Protein backbone atom coordinates (compact mmCIF):
# COMPACT_ATOMS: atom_id res chain seq x y z
CA UNK A 1 0.00 0.00 0.00
CA UNK A 2 1.10 3.53 -0.65
CA UNK A 3 -0.13 6.97 -1.57
CA UNK A 4 0.72 7.58 -5.21
CA UNK A 5 1.61 11.10 -6.36
CA UNK A 6 1.85 12.09 -9.99
CA UNK A 7 4.69 14.63 -10.24
CA UNK A 8 4.57 16.68 -13.43
CA UNK A 9 7.65 17.81 -15.31
CA UNK A 10 8.16 21.11 -17.07
CA UNK A 11 11.26 21.13 -19.26
CA UNK A 12 12.79 18.28 -17.27
CA UNK A 13 12.13 19.76 -13.82
CA UNK A 14 9.47 18.78 -11.30
CA UNK A 15 6.95 21.63 -11.27
CA UNK A 16 6.67 23.60 -8.06
CA UNK A 17 2.99 22.71 -7.75
CA UNK A 18 3.98 19.04 -8.00
CA UNK A 19 6.53 19.48 -5.21
CA UNK A 20 3.58 20.66 -3.13
CA UNK A 21 1.61 17.60 -4.25
CA UNK A 22 4.44 15.25 -3.22
CA UNK A 23 4.63 16.89 0.19
CA UNK A 24 0.84 16.72 0.52
CA UNK A 25 0.85 13.04 -0.51
CA UNK A 26 3.61 12.27 1.99
CA UNK A 27 1.53 13.86 4.74
CA UNK A 28 -1.50 11.78 3.75
CA UNK A 29 0.73 8.69 3.74
CA UNK A 30 1.81 9.55 7.29
CA UNK A 31 -1.81 9.99 8.34
CA UNK A 32 -2.81 6.64 6.85
CA UNK A 33 0.30 4.75 8.01
CA UNK A 34 1.66 4.05 4.53
CA UNK A 35 4.42 5.49 2.40
CA UNK A 36 4.47 7.89 -0.53
CA UNK A 37 5.48 6.88 -4.05
CA UNK A 38 5.93 9.47 -6.80
CA UNK A 39 5.35 8.58 -10.43
CA UNK A 40 7.19 10.74 -12.93
CA UNK A 41 6.63 10.49 -16.68
CA UNK A 42 8.95 11.88 -19.35
CA UNK A 43 12.62 12.79 -19.57
CA UNK A 44 14.46 14.05 -16.49
CA UNK A 45 17.90 13.37 -15.06
CA UNK A 46 18.44 11.15 -12.04
CA UNK A 47 19.20 13.97 -9.63
CA UNK A 48 15.93 15.64 -10.52
CA UNK A 49 13.96 12.40 -10.17
CA UNK A 50 15.57 11.59 -6.82
CA UNK A 51 14.77 15.10 -5.59
CA UNK A 52 11.16 13.95 -5.07
CA UNK A 53 12.62 12.50 -1.85
CA UNK A 54 13.24 15.99 -0.51
CA UNK A 55 9.50 16.55 -0.40
CA UNK A 56 8.73 13.20 1.23
CA UNK A 57 8.51 10.58 -1.52
CA UNK A 58 9.96 7.27 -0.31
CA UNK A 59 10.33 6.00 -3.86
CA UNK A 60 10.08 7.24 -7.44
CA UNK A 61 8.70 5.30 -10.38
CA UNK A 62 9.98 6.68 -13.66
CA UNK A 63 8.43 6.05 -17.07
CA UNK A 64 10.73 7.30 -19.77
CA UNK A 65 9.28 5.62 -22.86
CA UNK A 66 9.91 8.17 -25.67
CA UNK A 67 6.28 7.76 -26.72
CA UNK A 68 5.50 9.65 -23.53
CA UNK A 69 7.78 12.62 -24.23
CA UNK A 70 4.80 14.70 -25.24
CA UNK A 71 2.35 15.29 -22.39
CA UNK A 72 -0.68 13.16 -23.24
CA UNK A 73 -3.40 13.06 -20.60
CA UNK A 74 -4.88 9.78 -21.78
CA UNK A 75 -1.59 7.88 -21.99
CA UNK A 76 -0.36 9.38 -18.75
CA UNK A 77 -3.56 8.26 -17.03
CA UNK A 78 -2.93 4.73 -18.26
CA UNK A 79 0.57 4.81 -16.78
CA UNK A 80 -0.60 6.20 -13.45
CA UNK A 81 -3.43 3.64 -13.24
CA UNK A 82 -0.88 0.86 -13.82
CA UNK A 83 1.38 2.33 -11.15
CA UNK A 84 -1.53 2.54 -8.71
CA UNK A 85 -2.24 -1.11 -9.33
CA UNK A 86 1.39 -2.20 -8.90
CA UNK A 87 1.74 -0.22 -5.68
CA UNK A 88 -1.69 -1.08 -4.35
CA UNK A 89 -2.37 2.64 -3.98
CA UNK A 90 -5.87 3.65 -3.10
CA UNK A 91 -5.09 7.33 -2.79
CA UNK A 92 -3.75 9.24 -5.80
CA UNK A 93 -2.65 12.87 -5.50
CA UNK A 94 -2.02 15.32 -8.34
CA UNK A 95 -1.40 19.07 -8.48
CA UNK A 96 -4.12 20.76 -10.50
CA UNK A 97 -2.91 21.76 -13.95
CA UNK A 98 -4.28 21.48 -17.45
CA UNK A 99 -2.52 18.13 -17.91
CA UNK A 100 -3.66 16.90 -14.50
CA UNK A 101 -7.27 17.87 -15.26
CA UNK A 102 -7.26 15.57 -18.27
CA UNK A 103 -5.57 12.79 -16.31
CA UNK A 104 -7.76 12.85 -13.19
CA UNK A 105 -10.91 12.44 -15.24
CA UNK A 106 -9.57 9.53 -17.28
CA UNK A 107 -8.19 7.96 -14.09
CA UNK A 108 -11.49 8.32 -12.26
CA UNK A 109 -13.20 6.62 -15.19
CA UNK A 110 -10.67 3.77 -15.28
CA UNK A 111 -10.56 3.13 -11.54
CA UNK A 112 -14.16 4.00 -10.62
CA UNK A 113 -12.61 6.42 -8.18
CA UNK A 114 -14.07 9.10 -5.97
CA UNK A 115 -12.68 12.39 -7.08
CA UNK A 116 -12.20 15.75 -5.42
CA UNK A 117 -10.91 18.61 -7.55
CA UNK A 118 -9.56 21.92 -6.17
CA UNK A 119 -8.67 20.40 -2.80
CA UNK A 120 -7.32 23.03 -0.41
CA UNK A 121 -6.59 21.18 2.84
CA UNK A 122 -5.30 17.86 4.13
CA UNK A 123 -8.09 15.28 4.48
CA UNK A 124 -10.00 14.75 7.72
CA UNK A 125 -9.95 11.03 8.49
CA UNK A 126 -11.83 11.18 11.79
CA UNK A 127 -15.06 10.01 10.21
CA UNK A 128 -14.55 8.45 6.80
CA UNK A 129 -12.53 10.43 4.27
CA UNK A 130 -13.47 14.10 4.06
CA UNK A 131 -11.69 16.79 2.05
CA UNK A 132 -12.31 20.49 1.70
CA UNK A 133 -12.42 21.87 -1.81
CA UNK A 134 -13.03 25.22 -3.43
CA UNK A 135 -16.30 25.46 -5.44
CA UNK A 136 -18.34 28.13 -7.25
CA UNK A 137 -15.08 29.49 -8.62
CA UNK A 138 -13.70 30.27 -5.21
CA UNK A 139 -16.91 31.79 -3.87
CA UNK A 140 -17.48 28.88 -1.44
CA UNK A 141 -16.05 25.64 -0.08
CA UNK A 142 -17.45 22.11 0.08
CA UNK A 143 -16.60 19.32 2.50
CA UNK A 144 -16.64 16.22 0.29
CA UNK A 145 -17.05 12.69 1.60
CA UNK A 146 -15.18 10.32 -0.69
CA UNK A 147 -16.78 6.90 -0.46
CA UNK A 148 -15.15 4.91 -3.27
CA UNK A 149 -12.28 2.52 -2.50
CA UNK A 150 -9.94 4.53 -4.66
CA UNK A 151 -9.69 8.27 -4.09
CA UNK A 152 -8.19 10.90 -6.33
CA UNK A 153 -7.29 14.31 -4.95
CA UNK A 154 -6.39 17.17 -7.30
CA UNK A 155 -4.90 19.87 -5.10
CA UNK A 156 -4.89 23.59 -5.75
CA UNK A 157 -1.72 25.60 -5.73
CA UNK A 158 -0.71 26.91 -2.29
CA UNK A 159 -2.69 24.24 -0.43
CA UNK A 160 0.40 23.32 1.54
CA UNK A 161 3.89 24.73 2.03
CA UNK A 162 6.44 21.96 1.58
CA UNK A 163 9.18 21.51 4.14
CA UNK A 164 12.26 20.24 2.37
CA UNK A 165 14.73 17.71 3.75
CA UNK A 166 17.92 16.51 2.11
CA UNK A 167 16.57 12.99 1.54
CA UNK A 168 16.80 11.49 -1.92
CA UNK A 169 14.37 8.86 -3.17
CA UNK A 170 15.42 5.66 -4.95
CA UNK A 171 14.31 5.64 -8.58
CA UNK A 172 12.84 2.56 -10.27
CA UNK A 173 12.14 2.30 -13.98
CA UNK A 174 8.45 1.72 -14.60
CA UNK A 175 7.48 0.39 -18.02
CA UNK A 176 3.81 -0.53 -18.16
CA UNK A 177 2.08 -1.62 -21.37
CA UNK A 178 0.80 1.41 -23.30
CA UNK A 179 -2.50 1.44 -25.22
CA UNK A 180 -2.48 2.41 -28.88
CA UNK A 181 -5.90 3.96 -28.35
CA UNK A 182 -4.27 6.61 -26.14
CA UNK A 183 -2.20 7.87 -29.08
CA UNK A 184 -4.90 8.61 -31.67
CA UNK A 185 -4.74 12.39 -31.28
CA UNK A 186 -2.01 13.81 -33.46
CA UNK A 187 -0.31 17.01 -32.39
CA UNK A 188 0.32 19.17 -35.43
CA UNK A 189 1.83 22.21 -33.83
CA UNK A 190 2.65 23.58 -30.40
CA UNK A 191 3.08 27.24 -29.56
CA UNK A 192 4.43 27.73 -26.10
CA UNK A 193 6.25 30.66 -24.61
CA UNK A 194 9.28 29.07 -23.00
CA UNK A 195 11.43 30.59 -20.30
CA UNK A 196 8.56 32.69 -18.96
CA UNK A 197 7.09 31.95 -15.58
CA UNK A 198 3.97 29.85 -16.10
CA UNK A 199 1.00 31.76 -14.78
CA UNK A 200 -0.68 28.83 -12.96
CA UNK A 201 2.61 28.09 -11.21
CA UNK A 202 3.58 31.65 -10.33
CA UNK A 203 3.90 32.81 -6.72
CA UNK A 204 3.67 36.45 -7.76
CA UNK A 205 1.38 37.80 -10.45
CA UNK A 206 1.07 41.29 -11.94
CA UNK A 207 -2.21 41.64 -13.78
CA UNK A 208 -3.67 44.47 -15.79
CA UNK A 209 -7.01 45.45 -17.28
CA UNK A 210 -8.62 47.86 -19.65
CA UNK A 211 -7.24 50.72 -17.57
CA UNK A 212 -3.96 50.25 -19.45
CA UNK A 213 -5.70 51.68 -22.56
CA UNK A 214 -3.88 49.60 -25.15
CA UNK A 215 -1.38 46.77 -25.73
CA UNK A 216 1.40 49.26 -26.46
CA UNK A 217 1.35 50.26 -22.78
CA UNK A 218 2.10 46.81 -21.36
CA UNK A 219 5.77 47.64 -20.96
CA UNK A 220 5.16 49.13 -17.50
CA UNK A 221 3.34 45.95 -16.44
CA UNK A 222 6.08 43.71 -17.77
CA UNK A 223 8.80 45.81 -16.14
CA UNK A 224 7.21 45.42 -12.72
CA UNK A 225 6.62 41.71 -13.31
CA UNK A 226 10.22 41.24 -14.35
CA UNK A 227 11.59 43.11 -11.36
CA UNK A 228 9.48 40.90 -9.07
CA UNK A 229 10.07 37.66 -11.05
CA UNK A 230 6.31 37.56 -11.39
CA UNK A 231 4.08 36.21 -14.15
CA UNK A 232 1.70 38.52 -16.02
CA UNK A 233 -2.07 38.11 -16.26
CA UNK A 234 -5.00 40.13 -17.60
CA UNK A 235 -8.75 40.65 -17.43
CA UNK A 236 -11.12 39.11 -19.97
CA UNK A 237 -11.76 42.20 -22.12
CA UNK A 238 -8.00 42.55 -22.53
CA UNK A 239 -7.68 39.08 -24.02
CA UNK A 240 -10.95 39.47 -25.97
CA UNK A 241 -9.45 42.58 -27.59
CA UNK A 242 -6.29 40.58 -28.37
CA UNK A 243 -4.15 42.95 -26.34
CA UNK A 244 -2.78 39.89 -24.54
CA UNK A 245 -2.83 36.12 -25.24
CA UNK A 246 -5.82 34.14 -24.05
CA UNK A 247 -3.64 32.02 -21.76
CA UNK A 248 -3.16 35.11 -19.54
CA UNK A 249 -6.87 35.69 -18.94
CA UNK A 250 -7.93 35.06 -15.35
CA UNK A 251 -11.41 34.89 -13.85
CA UNK A 252 -14.64 32.99 -14.01
CA UNK A 253 -14.11 32.08 -17.66
CA UNK A 254 -10.32 32.06 -17.53
CA UNK A 255 -7.63 30.64 -15.31
CA UNK A 256 -8.23 30.38 -11.59
CA UNK A 257 -5.05 31.21 -9.77
CA UNK A 258 -3.99 31.32 -6.12
CA UNK A 259 -0.59 33.01 -5.94
CA UNK A 260 0.95 34.56 -2.82
CA UNK A 261 0.61 38.02 -4.33
CA UNK A 262 -1.79 39.35 -6.97
CA UNK A 263 -1.30 42.96 -8.10
CA UNK A 264 -4.29 44.24 -10.10
CA UNK A 265 -3.57 47.33 -12.21
CA UNK A 266 -6.43 49.20 -13.89
CA UNK A 267 -8.91 46.37 -13.27
CA UNK A 268 -12.34 47.34 -11.92
CA UNK A 269 -12.89 44.14 -9.93
CA UNK A 270 -16.04 42.68 -11.50
CA UNK A 271 -17.33 39.63 -9.63
CA UNK A 272 -16.38 37.42 -12.59
CA UNK A 273 -12.82 38.68 -12.43
CA UNK A 274 -12.61 38.24 -8.64
CA UNK A 275 -13.77 34.65 -9.02
CA UNK A 276 -10.48 33.73 -10.63
CA UNK A 277 -8.18 35.46 -8.17
CA UNK A 278 -9.93 35.70 -4.81
CA UNK A 279 -7.97 32.85 -3.29
CA UNK A 280 -4.71 34.74 -3.73
CA UNK A 281 -3.01 35.22 -0.35
CA UNK A 282 -2.41 38.98 -0.70
CA UNK A 283 -4.23 41.22 -3.17
CA UNK A 284 -3.01 44.69 -4.17
CA UNK A 285 -5.26 46.98 -6.20
CA UNK A 286 -4.08 50.04 -8.12
CA UNK A 287 -6.92 52.02 -9.68
CA UNK A 288 -7.51 55.72 -10.21
CA UNK A 289 -11.17 55.39 -9.24
CA UNK A 290 -11.55 55.31 -5.43
CA UNK A 291 -14.97 53.69 -5.94
CA UNK A 292 -13.63 50.74 -7.95
CA UNK A 293 -15.23 47.60 -6.44
CA UNK A 294 -11.88 45.79 -6.37
CA UNK A 295 -10.76 47.83 -3.34
CA UNK A 296 -13.35 45.96 -1.24
CA UNK A 297 -11.52 42.69 -1.92
CA UNK A 298 -8.00 44.02 -1.54
CA UNK A 299 -5.45 43.87 1.24
CA UNK A 300 -3.53 46.92 -0.01
CA UNK A 301 -4.79 49.65 -2.29
CA UNK A 302 -3.45 52.69 -4.08
CA UNK A 303 -5.82 55.22 -5.63
CA UNK A 304 -3.69 56.48 -8.46
CA UNK A 305 -2.79 56.45 -12.12
CA UNK A 306 -1.09 53.24 -13.24
CA UNK A 307 1.11 55.17 -15.62
CA UNK A 308 2.59 57.04 -12.67
CA UNK A 309 2.44 54.34 -9.97
CA UNK A 310 3.77 51.26 -11.79
CA UNK A 311 7.17 52.70 -12.83
CA UNK A 312 7.67 53.91 -9.26
CA UNK A 313 6.89 50.50 -7.85
CA UNK A 314 9.33 48.91 -10.29
CA UNK A 315 12.04 51.28 -9.13
CA UNK A 316 11.27 50.54 -5.50
CA UNK A 317 11.45 46.77 -6.10
CA UNK A 318 14.83 47.14 -7.77
CA UNK A 319 16.05 49.12 -4.76
CA UNK A 320 15.06 46.39 -2.29
Amino acid at each position, binding site marked *: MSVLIFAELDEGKIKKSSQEAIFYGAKVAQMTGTSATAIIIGQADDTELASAGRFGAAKVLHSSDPKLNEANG*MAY*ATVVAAAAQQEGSNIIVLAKS*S*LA*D*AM*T*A*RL*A*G*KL*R*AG*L*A*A*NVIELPDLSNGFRV*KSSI*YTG*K*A*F*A*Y*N*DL*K*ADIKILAIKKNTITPEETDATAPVEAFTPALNDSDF*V*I*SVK*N*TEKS*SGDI*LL*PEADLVVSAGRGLKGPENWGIVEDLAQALHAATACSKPVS*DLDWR*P*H*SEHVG*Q*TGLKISPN*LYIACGISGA*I*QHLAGVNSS*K*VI*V*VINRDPEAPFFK*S*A*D*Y*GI*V*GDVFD*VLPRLTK*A*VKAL
Partner: protein
Amino acid sequence: MRMKILVCVTSVPDTTTKITFTDNNTKLNKAGVTFITGPYDDYALARAVELKEKTGATITVLNVGESDTEPVIRKCLAIGADDAIRVNAEPTDAYFVAEQIAAIAKENNYDLILMGRESIDYNGGQVHGIVGEMLGMPSISPVMLLDIDGDTAKITREIEGGKESLEAKLPLVLGCQEPIAEWKIPNMRGIMTARTKPLKVVEPTGTDKLTTVGSYELPAPRGAVKMIKADEAEMLIQLLHTEAKVI
Protein backbone atom coordinates in the same frame (compact mmCIF):
# COMPACT_ATOMS: atom_id res chain seq x y z
CA MET B 1 -25.05 11.14 -43.28
CA ARG B 2 -25.85 14.02 -40.99
CA MET B 3 -23.52 14.40 -38.08
CA LYS B 4 -25.11 13.78 -34.68
CA ILE B 5 -23.98 16.12 -31.94
CA LEU B 6 -24.72 15.79 -28.24
CA VAL B 7 -24.28 18.95 -26.16
CA CYS B 8 -24.22 18.48 -22.39
CA VAL B 9 -25.34 21.52 -20.41
CA THR B 10 -25.50 22.53 -16.79
CA SER B 11 -27.92 24.90 -15.11
CA VAL B 12 -25.88 27.08 -12.76
CA PRO B 13 -26.24 30.28 -10.74
CA ASP B 14 -25.65 33.41 -12.81
CA THR B 15 -22.02 34.53 -12.62
CA THR B 16 -22.94 37.62 -10.57
CA THR B 17 -24.61 35.53 -7.83
CA LYS B 18 -23.49 35.99 -4.27
CA ILE B 19 -23.46 32.37 -3.09
CA THR B 20 -25.10 31.54 0.27
CA PHE B 21 -26.32 28.32 1.85
CA THR B 22 -29.33 27.20 3.90
CA ASP B 23 -30.34 24.20 6.02
CA ASN B 24 -27.33 24.42 8.28
CA ASN B 25 -24.96 24.93 5.33
CA THR B 26 -26.04 21.78 3.52
CA LYS B 27 -27.97 23.32 0.61
CA LEU B 28 -27.42 26.13 -1.85
CA ASN B 29 -29.79 28.99 -1.10
CA LYS B 30 -31.65 29.28 -4.40
CA ALA B 31 -33.84 32.18 -3.28
CA GLY B 32 -33.41 35.09 -5.66
CA VAL B 33 -30.78 33.25 -7.72
CA THR B 34 -31.09 33.36 -11.51
CA PHE B 35 -30.01 30.14 -13.19
CA ILE B 36 -28.24 30.23 -16.53
CA THR B 37 -26.64 27.77 -18.91
CA GLY B 38 -23.05 27.19 -17.83
CA PRO B 39 -21.01 29.85 -19.70
CA TYR B 40 -18.67 27.21 -21.16
CA ASP B 41 -21.62 24.98 -22.11
CA ASP B 42 -22.96 28.00 -24.00
CA TYR B 43 -19.77 28.04 -26.07
CA ALA B 44 -20.21 24.33 -26.82
CA LEU B 45 -23.83 24.86 -27.89
CA ALA B 46 -22.96 27.91 -30.00
CA ARG B 47 -20.32 25.96 -31.94
CA ALA B 48 -22.75 23.05 -32.38
CA VAL B 49 -25.33 25.43 -33.87
CA GLU B 50 -22.71 26.81 -36.27
CA LEU B 51 -21.79 23.28 -37.36
CA LYS B 52 -25.48 22.55 -37.84
CA GLU B 53 -25.87 25.63 -40.03
CA LYS B 54 -22.82 24.63 -42.07
CA THR B 55 -23.24 20.88 -42.40
CA GLY B 56 -26.81 20.09 -41.39
CA ALA B 57 -25.95 18.28 -38.16
CA THR B 58 -28.57 17.39 -35.59
CA ILE B 59 -28.17 18.60 -32.01
CA THR B 60 -29.47 16.94 -28.86
CA VAL B 61 -29.02 18.74 -25.54
CA LEU B 62 -28.61 16.70 -22.41
CA ASN B 63 -28.84 17.79 -18.82
CA VAL B 64 -28.62 15.74 -15.66
CA GLY B 65 -30.77 17.69 -13.27
CA GLU B 66 -34.05 18.08 -11.46
CA SER B 67 -37.12 19.66 -13.04
CA ASP B 68 -36.03 23.20 -12.16
CA THR B 69 -33.39 23.04 -14.93
CA GLU B 70 -36.03 22.96 -17.69
CA PRO B 71 -35.94 26.73 -18.43
CA VAL B 72 -32.24 26.37 -19.26
CA ILE B 73 -32.94 23.36 -21.47
CA ARG B 74 -35.73 25.23 -23.29
CA LYS B 75 -33.35 28.11 -23.89
CA CYS B 76 -30.89 25.71 -25.53
CA LEU B 77 -33.69 24.45 -27.77
CA ALA B 78 -34.52 28.07 -28.62
CA ILE B 79 -30.90 28.70 -29.57
CA GLY B 80 -30.99 25.85 -32.05
CA ALA B 81 -30.88 22.35 -30.52
CA ASP B 82 -33.37 19.93 -32.10
CA ASP B 83 -34.37 17.92 -29.07
CA ALA B 84 -33.48 17.47 -25.44
CA ILE B 85 -33.08 14.83 -22.78
CA ARG B 86 -33.14 15.46 -19.05
CA VAL B 87 -31.95 12.74 -16.73
CA ASN B 88 -34.03 13.31 -13.64
CA ALA B 89 -31.46 13.36 -10.83
CA GLU B 90 -29.52 15.74 -8.63
CA PRO B 91 -26.11 16.13 -10.31
CA THR B 92 -23.88 16.11 -7.26
CA ASP B 93 -21.06 13.82 -8.30
CA ALA B 94 -19.02 14.03 -11.52
CA TYR B 95 -18.74 10.23 -11.82
CA PHE B 96 -22.49 9.80 -11.42
CA VAL B 97 -23.23 12.52 -14.00
CA ALA B 98 -20.73 10.97 -16.41
CA GLU B 99 -22.40 7.57 -16.00
CA GLN B 100 -25.73 9.08 -17.02
CA ILE B 101 -24.26 10.85 -20.04
CA ALA B 102 -22.34 7.74 -21.12
CA ALA B 103 -25.49 5.59 -20.86
CA ILE B 104 -27.41 7.94 -23.18
CA ALA B 105 -24.46 8.25 -25.57
CA LYS B 106 -24.16 4.46 -25.85
CA GLU B 107 -27.75 4.21 -27.07
CA ASN B 108 -27.41 6.95 -29.66
CA ASN B 109 -23.97 6.86 -31.30
CA TYR B 110 -23.15 10.55 -31.43
CA ASP B 111 -20.27 11.69 -33.64
CA LEU B 112 -19.40 14.54 -31.36
CA ILE B 113 -20.09 15.06 -27.68
CA LEU B 114 -19.55 18.70 -26.77
CA MET B 115 -19.37 19.92 -23.20
CA GLY B 116 -18.09 23.00 -21.44
CA ARG B 117 -14.51 23.02 -20.24
CA GLU B 118 -15.89 23.08 -16.70
CA SER B 119 -19.12 23.67 -14.88
CA ILE B 120 -19.02 26.89 -12.87
CA ASP B 121 -20.57 25.34 -9.77
CA TYR B 122 -18.13 22.56 -9.03
CA ASN B 123 -15.43 23.64 -11.52
CA GLY B 124 -14.25 20.08 -11.72
CA GLY B 125 -13.56 20.05 -15.44
CA GLN B 126 -13.90 16.31 -15.14
CA VAL B 127 -17.13 15.09 -16.69
CA HIS B 128 -15.85 15.06 -20.31
CA GLY B 129 -12.80 12.99 -19.46
CA ILE B 130 -14.76 10.46 -17.43
CA VAL B 131 -17.36 10.13 -20.22
CA GLY B 132 -14.54 9.68 -22.76
CA GLU B 133 -13.04 6.92 -20.66
CA MET B 134 -16.41 5.22 -20.18
CA LEU B 135 -17.09 5.28 -23.92
CA GLY B 136 -13.52 4.43 -24.95
CA MET B 137 -13.32 7.73 -26.86
CA PRO B 138 -10.60 10.36 -26.83
CA SER B 139 -11.39 13.45 -24.78
CA ILE B 140 -9.82 16.85 -25.40
CA SER B 141 -10.14 20.01 -23.30
CA PRO B 142 -10.06 23.01 -23.27
CA VAL B 143 -10.86 23.37 -26.95
CA MET B 144 -10.58 26.92 -28.38
CA LEU B 145 -11.18 26.16 -32.07
CA LEU B 146 -13.01 23.29 -33.73
CA ASP B 147 -13.45 22.50 -37.38
CA ILE B 148 -14.83 19.31 -38.85
CA ASP B 149 -13.53 17.97 -42.13
CA GLY B 150 -15.26 14.70 -43.04
CA ASP B 151 -14.57 12.38 -40.13
CA THR B 152 -11.63 14.41 -38.83
CA ALA B 153 -11.75 17.13 -36.22
CA LYS B 154 -9.20 19.93 -36.38
CA ILE B 155 -8.76 21.38 -32.96
CA THR B 156 -6.81 24.07 -31.17
CA ARG B 157 -6.44 23.41 -27.49
CA GLU B 158 -5.08 25.72 -24.80
CA ILE B 159 -2.06 24.46 -22.90
CA GLU B 160 -0.22 26.19 -20.08
CA GLY B 161 1.49 29.23 -21.55
CA GLY B 162 0.28 28.60 -25.09
CA LYS B 163 -1.75 26.48 -27.46
CA GLU B 164 -1.55 23.35 -29.52
CA SER B 165 -3.20 22.30 -32.77
CA LEU B 166 -4.45 18.74 -32.97
CA GLU B 167 -6.22 16.36 -35.30
CA ALA B 168 -8.33 13.40 -34.33
CA LYS B 169 -10.97 11.17 -35.88
CA LEU B 170 -14.57 11.30 -34.71
CA PRO B 171 -16.20 10.30 -32.43
CA LEU B 172 -14.77 12.59 -29.77
CA VAL B 173 -15.66 14.15 -26.46
CA LEU B 174 -14.63 17.80 -26.20
CA GLY B 175 -14.63 20.38 -23.40
CA CYS B 176 -15.09 23.81 -24.99
CA GLN B 177 -14.11 27.37 -24.11
CA GLU B 178 -13.84 30.71 -25.86
CA PRO B 179 -13.16 31.71 -28.57
CA ILE B 180 -14.68 28.58 -30.13
CA ALA B 181 -17.83 30.55 -31.03
CA GLU B 182 -19.77 33.62 -29.96
CA TRP B 183 -22.48 33.03 -27.37
CA LYS B 184 -25.87 32.96 -29.07
CA ILE B 185 -29.04 34.66 -27.87
CA PRO B 186 -32.36 33.04 -28.80
CA ASN B 187 -34.53 34.97 -31.24
CA MET B 188 -38.33 35.17 -31.13
CA ARG B 189 -38.85 32.43 -33.67
CA GLY B 190 -36.47 30.17 -31.76
CA ILE B 191 -38.34 30.78 -28.52
CA MET B 192 -41.68 29.93 -30.20
CA THR B 193 -40.46 26.71 -31.82
CA ALA B 194 -38.62 25.63 -28.64
CA ARG B 195 -41.97 25.15 -26.90
CA THR B 196 -42.90 22.27 -29.17
CA LYS B 197 -39.51 20.61 -29.55
CA PRO B 198 -39.28 17.23 -27.79
CA LEU B 199 -37.87 17.17 -24.24
CA LYS B 200 -37.64 13.63 -22.96
CA VAL B 201 -37.27 12.97 -19.23
CA VAL B 202 -35.57 9.71 -18.24
CA GLU B 203 -34.72 8.21 -14.86
CA PRO B 204 -31.04 7.74 -13.90
CA THR B 205 -29.19 4.45 -14.24
CA GLY B 206 -27.26 3.33 -11.16
CA THR B 207 -27.77 5.45 -8.11
CA ASP B 208 -24.73 5.12 -5.90
CA LYS B 209 -22.70 8.27 -5.60
CA LEU B 210 -18.98 7.90 -5.03
CA THR B 211 -18.73 11.34 -3.52
CA THR B 212 -21.22 13.36 -1.52
CA VAL B 213 -21.01 16.80 0.03
CA GLY B 214 -21.35 16.82 3.82
CA SER B 215 -21.57 20.59 4.14
CA TYR B 216 -20.63 23.90 2.60
CA GLU B 217 -18.81 26.92 3.94
CA LEU B 218 -18.25 30.53 2.88
CA PRO B 219 -14.77 32.03 2.80
CA ALA B 220 -13.80 34.27 5.71
CA PRO B 221 -14.00 37.92 4.66
CA ARG B 222 -10.70 39.64 3.92
CA GLY B 223 -9.51 42.12 6.54
CA ALA B 224 -9.88 45.84 5.89
CA VAL B 225 -7.90 47.20 2.98
CA LYS B 226 -4.84 49.26 3.86
CA MET B 227 -4.72 52.32 1.61
CA ILE B 228 -1.44 53.87 0.56
CA LYS B 229 -1.25 57.37 -0.89
CA ALA B 230 -0.25 57.50 -4.54
CA ASP B 231 2.63 59.88 -3.84
CA GLU B 232 3.97 57.38 -1.31
CA ALA B 233 3.54 54.38 -3.63
CA GLU B 234 7.02 53.06 -2.73
CA MET B 235 5.65 52.30 0.76
CA LEU B 236 3.66 49.46 -0.79
CA ILE B 237 6.83 47.60 -1.71
CA GLN B 238 8.15 48.02 1.84
CA LEU B 239 4.89 46.69 3.30
CA LEU B 240 4.80 43.71 0.93
CA HIS B 241 8.35 42.96 1.98
CA THR B 242 8.25 43.49 5.75
CA GLU B 243 4.57 43.17 6.72
CA ALA B 244 2.92 40.77 4.24
CA LYS B 245 6.29 39.04 3.60
CA VAL B 246 5.33 37.97 0.09
CA ILE B 247 8.27 39.55 -1.73
